[in-house]
C-alpha cells in the first residue's frame, strides 16, 4: 500500500495526553504550523462524561472505552529473561488511556513533585553511603537535570493544572502545615489544600503522636473554582467520587481536556487529528534526520506526514515502541549490557495496611482525586538508609478517593470470600474501613526492560512491545520496612482489625496497581546510558524529541504526572529558546 503523502508542516506531536497537549499549545503559539496526532477518539467532556452516566462504575472502571483497546494492541509480559512473554489479554495492573487527553482523561489527580534526590539517585547515594549501598545490577542513574533546574517548570505545570496544596518549603524556608521534605518551591500552590477527611484526620493525629509531619496531599481536583494561565475555567470538585478511571462531569479534574485543549483548538496554526495511529518515524538515508511520520488514519489508510520537528509524547510504552519500530537509537540488550532503547523500564512498588473499625463511619463514597493526608519521612532518601539493605522509599498516605462498591467493598482479614459471613462483613465494614497505603519508588535493574516481542503482533502486523519486569529485593525490603512503620501508625489509631501487606513475591500483571510505568527512552548526560539528552532530544536523531514517563531513568515514589507535565514545559521552552534558533544537537 502506498501512503498518501501530505504537505509538510513544521511540527508533528504524537499523542495528546499531558505531555503532548502542552507541547502542542506552547509551540502553536510561536507561529509554527503544528499537527497533533492522537490514536484515540475525540472526547467532548460535556457529552462523554455527562451526568448521570459519568457515575457508572461498571462502564468506566471495568469496561472503559477510554482505556487502550487491547484487541488491537497490547504488551507482552514476563517476570524474567528465561520465560516466554505472554500477551496482557485483559486490562489489569495498569490502565493506559486511548483518547484525546490520554491517560490523564481518567487519572486520579495525585500531583507531587519528585524529590531532589530522585533526580540524582546514583550520585547522592554514593556520596552519602558509598558505592556499596547501590544494589547489585541496579542501573538507576542521574537524570542529567536537577530538581532546581526543573523547579520553574513544576511551578508552571502546577499553575496550569490548578493544583491545591500547602507549600512545605518556600525558597528554603520550612512552612508549617506543608510537606517539610519537599524540594524548595518558588511560590505557593495556586489553590489551597483540601480540608482533611475523617480518615485523614485520624491518620494525621496518630502520625503526629509518633513524631511525623502529616500534610494534606496535593491534588489536581480543584479545591475551588480556578482560572488557569490559558484562561480556562475549572469548576470546584464536589467530592462525589467516581474519579480515578472516570472522566469528571464537573470539569473539576485538571486534564488536557480541561486545562489545555479548549485553548489549543482555537489556534489557527494547530490541527488535531484524532484516530490517527502513528506506526513509524521515517528517517533519511543517513539515519541522522527524521523526515516524516507514517500513521493509519480513521479509515485505516496509510498517511505520511512530513515535518521538520517530530515530538513523541505518547505513553511510556508507545514512545519506546515507536523508537524501536523506527530504528532510532540502539536497542537495549540486557545480556551484553549494551544499547539504550528499552533500558531502565520501571514501575512503582506499594504496600498497604487496611484498618477496620466497629464505631467509626467514614462515608467512604465522599471524596475524589487525591484527597487525603500523607507523610514523607520515609520517601526517597529522607531517612538514613545505613544498614537497611535498600535505597529509595515511599510516601505513606490515606486517600479518600471515593470508594466504589465493586472495587472497594473491603472485608477484614480472615473473612470468607463469599457466603453469609462475607455478606455480614461487607455490610458492616464498607463504611468502617480505610487503608494506609505506601506509594513506593522502584529502582531500575539490568534485567528489567522493554523490547519488541518475537512472537506476538498487533492488528497491523507489527510486533508488540515486550516487558520483562519483577520486584527486586531492594523494593521488597523497602516495602517491608516501611509497611511496618505504617502498621505502627495504624496501631496508634486503634482499629479493631487490621491487615498488613507489603510488596512481596513476584510482580503480577493481574491486579490493578497503578498506571505509573516509566523508562525505556530515558534522559541523561551520557549517550551510552540514555536515549535523550537533558532537553529530551534524541542523541541519534536531533530533530526528534521524546517526552513523557519514558524519560524517567528510575521511578520516584511520587506519582509521575506532575513530573511529566514539568518535563513537557521544560522541553517546550528548550525547543523555543534553543532548538528553533539553531536546529541541531543541543549540548
Amino acid at each position, binding site marked *: 500500500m502506498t501512503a498518501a503523502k501530505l504537505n509538510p508542516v513544521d511540527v508533528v506531536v504524537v499523542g495528546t495526553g499531558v505531555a503532548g497537549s502542552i507541547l502542542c499549545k506552547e509551540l502553536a503559539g510561536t507561529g509554527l504550523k503544528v499537527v497533533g496526532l492522537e490514536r484515540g477518539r475525540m472526547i467532548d467532556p460535556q457529552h462523554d462524561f455527562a451526568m448521570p452516566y459519568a457515575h457508572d462504575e461498571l462502564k468506566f472502571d471495568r469496561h472503559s472505552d477510554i482505556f487502550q483497546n487491547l484487541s488491537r494492541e497490547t504488551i507482552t509480559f514476563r517476570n524474567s529473561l528465561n520465560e*516466554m512473554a505472554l500477551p496482557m489479554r485483559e486490562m489489569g495492573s495498569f490502565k493506559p488511556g486511548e483518547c484525546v487527553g490520554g491517560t490523564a482523561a481518567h487519572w486520579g489527580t495525585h500531583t507531587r513533585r519528585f524529590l531532589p534526590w530522585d533526580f540524582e539517585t546514583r550520585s547522592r547515594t554514593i556520596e552519602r553511603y558509598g558505592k556499596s549501598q547501590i544494589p547489585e545490577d541496579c542501573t538507576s542513574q542521574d537524570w542529567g537535570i536537577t530538581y532546581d533546574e526543573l523547579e520553574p517548570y513544576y511551578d508552571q505545570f502546577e499553575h496550569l493544572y490548578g493544583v491545591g496544596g500547602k507549600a512545605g518549603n518556600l525558597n528554603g524556608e520550612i512552612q508549617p502545615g506543608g510537606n517539610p521534605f519537599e524540594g524548595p518551591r518558588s511560590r505557593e500552590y495556586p489553590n489551597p489544600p483540601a480540608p482533611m477527611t475523617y480518615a485523614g484526620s485520624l491518620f494525621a493525629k496518630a502520625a503526629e503522636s509518633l513524631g511525623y509531619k502529616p500534610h494534606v496531599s496535593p491534588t489536581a481536583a480543584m479545591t475551588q473554582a480556578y482560572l488557569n494561565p490559558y484562561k480556562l475555567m475549572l469548576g470546584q470538585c464536589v467530592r462525589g467520587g467516581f474519579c480515578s478511571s472516570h472522566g469528571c462531569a464537573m470539569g473539576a479534574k485538571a486534564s488536557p481536556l480541561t486545562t489545555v485543549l479548549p485553548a489549543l483548538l482555537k489556534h489557527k496554526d494547530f490541527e488535531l487529528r484524532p484516530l490517527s495511529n502513528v506506526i513509524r518515524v521515517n528517517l533519511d538515508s543517513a539515519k541522522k534526520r527524521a523526515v516524516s511520520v507514517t500513521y493509519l488514519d480513521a479509515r485505516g489508510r496509510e498517511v505520511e506526514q512530513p515535518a521538520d520537528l517530530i515530538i513523541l509524547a505518547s505513553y511510556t510504552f508507545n514512545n519506546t515502541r515507536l523508537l524501536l519500530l523506527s530504528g532510532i537509537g540502539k536497542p537495549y540488550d540486557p545480556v551484553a549490557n549494551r544499547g539504550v532503547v528499552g533500558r531502565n523500564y520501571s514501575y512503582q512498588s506499594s504496600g498497604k495496611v487496611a484498618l477496620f473499625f466497629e464505631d467509626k463511619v467514614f462515608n467512604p463514597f465522599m471524596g475524589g482525586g487525591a484527597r487525603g493526608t500523607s507523610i514523607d519521612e520515609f520517601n526517597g532518601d529522607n531517612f538514613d538508609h545505613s544498614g537497611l539493605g535498600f535505597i529509595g522509599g515511599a510516601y505513606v498516605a490515606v486517600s479518600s478517593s471515593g470508594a466504589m462498591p465493586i472495587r472497594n467493598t473491603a472485608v477484614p482479614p480472615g473473612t470468607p470470600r463469599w457466603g453469609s459471613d462475607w455478606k455480614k462483613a461487607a455490610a458492616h465494614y464498607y463504611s468502617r474501613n480505610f487503608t494506609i497505603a505506601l506509594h513506593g519508588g522502584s529502582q531500575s535493574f539490568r534485567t528489567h526492560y522493554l523490547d519488541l516481542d518475537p512472537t506476538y503482533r498487533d492488528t497491523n502486523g507489527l510486533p508488540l512491545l515486550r516487558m520483562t519486569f519483577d520486584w527486586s529485593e531492594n523494593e521488597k525490603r523497602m516495602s517491608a520496612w516501611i509497611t511496618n512503620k505504617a502498621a505502627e501508625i495504624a496501631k496508634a489509631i486503634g482499629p479493631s482489625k487490621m491487615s498488613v501487606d507489603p510488596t512481596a513475591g513476584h510482580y503480577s500483571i493481574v491486579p490493578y496497581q497503578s498506571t505509573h510505568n516509566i523508562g525505556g527512552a530515558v534522559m541523561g548526560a551520557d549517550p551510552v546510558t540514555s536515549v535523550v539528552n537533558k532537553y529530551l532530544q534524541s542523541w541519534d536523531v536531533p530533530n526528534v524529541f521524546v517526552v513523557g514517563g519514558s524519560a524517567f531513568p528510575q521511578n520516584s515514589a511520587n506519582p509521575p504526572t506532575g513530573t511529566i507535565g514539568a518535563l513537557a514545559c521544560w522541553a517546550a521552552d528548550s525547543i523555543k529558546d534553543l532548538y528553533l534558533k539553531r536546529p541541531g544537537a543541543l549540548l
Partner: protein
Amino acid sequence: MQGTSNENAYRYLTQPEVRFLDAAVARLIPADELGPGAKEAGVACFIDQQLASAWGTHGRNYRMGPWPEGTLQQGFQSRFTPQEIYRAAIRETNVHCIKQHQKPFEFLTPQQQDEVLHGLEDGGIELESLPAKLFFSLLHRNTMEGFFADPMYGGNRDKVGWRLIGFPGVAAASYNDHIEEHNVPYRVEPVSILDIQEGRVKVDSQGYPKHAMLGQTKPE
C-alpha cells in the same frame, strides 16, 4: 429491572443455565436477615446481559495466539471467551453433580452446593475442558459486579446491593457540606442511573440528584 418488562428476558443463557446460576449466586450472596441476596438482585440476568455484550466475546481483549498456559503472574491466557466459559463450565459442573449426587446443581442441598462451589474455587473439582478455578473466579467476579453495578445492567434490583452497604449511588452535588462532619453517617435513599433515566428522581441543572435523607433508625 424496575419499571421494565424484560427482567426475565435472557438473550444468551438457556433456561437450565439460568437455573444453575440462580442457585449458585444464591450461595455466593445468600438472602438472609440482612436482606435479599444475589438471586433476588437479578445477578443471573446481569450475567446474561454481560455475556450478550461485547465483553461476552472479549471484544476489547487481545485474542491472538499462540496460547501457552503461562504463569499466574501473566494472567488470563485461555482461548475461551466468557460466553464459552459459562456454557462449558455449567454443563460440566452439572455432569460432576449428577455423577456425585444423581442431581444437577440446582437440586442439591445448600450444603452440597457449597461443597461444589468450594471445589470449583480451589480446583478440587476437575472440569473436562477448562480449569475449574477459571470458571469460579469469573462467576465470583460477575456476581459481585451484578450485585453492586447500577441496576440498569439488570442486577442490583431495587438497589439491594447498595442498601446493604450504605452506598448512595449517583452522587449528590452537596457532599462538600458533609465531608467535614466526622463520624456522622450519611444515610440516604440510593439513586441509580436507571432511576434518573426513568424519571423517578429529578436532577439539578448539572445533572446531579438531590438525595433524600433516611432517618437514623437503622441499627449502627
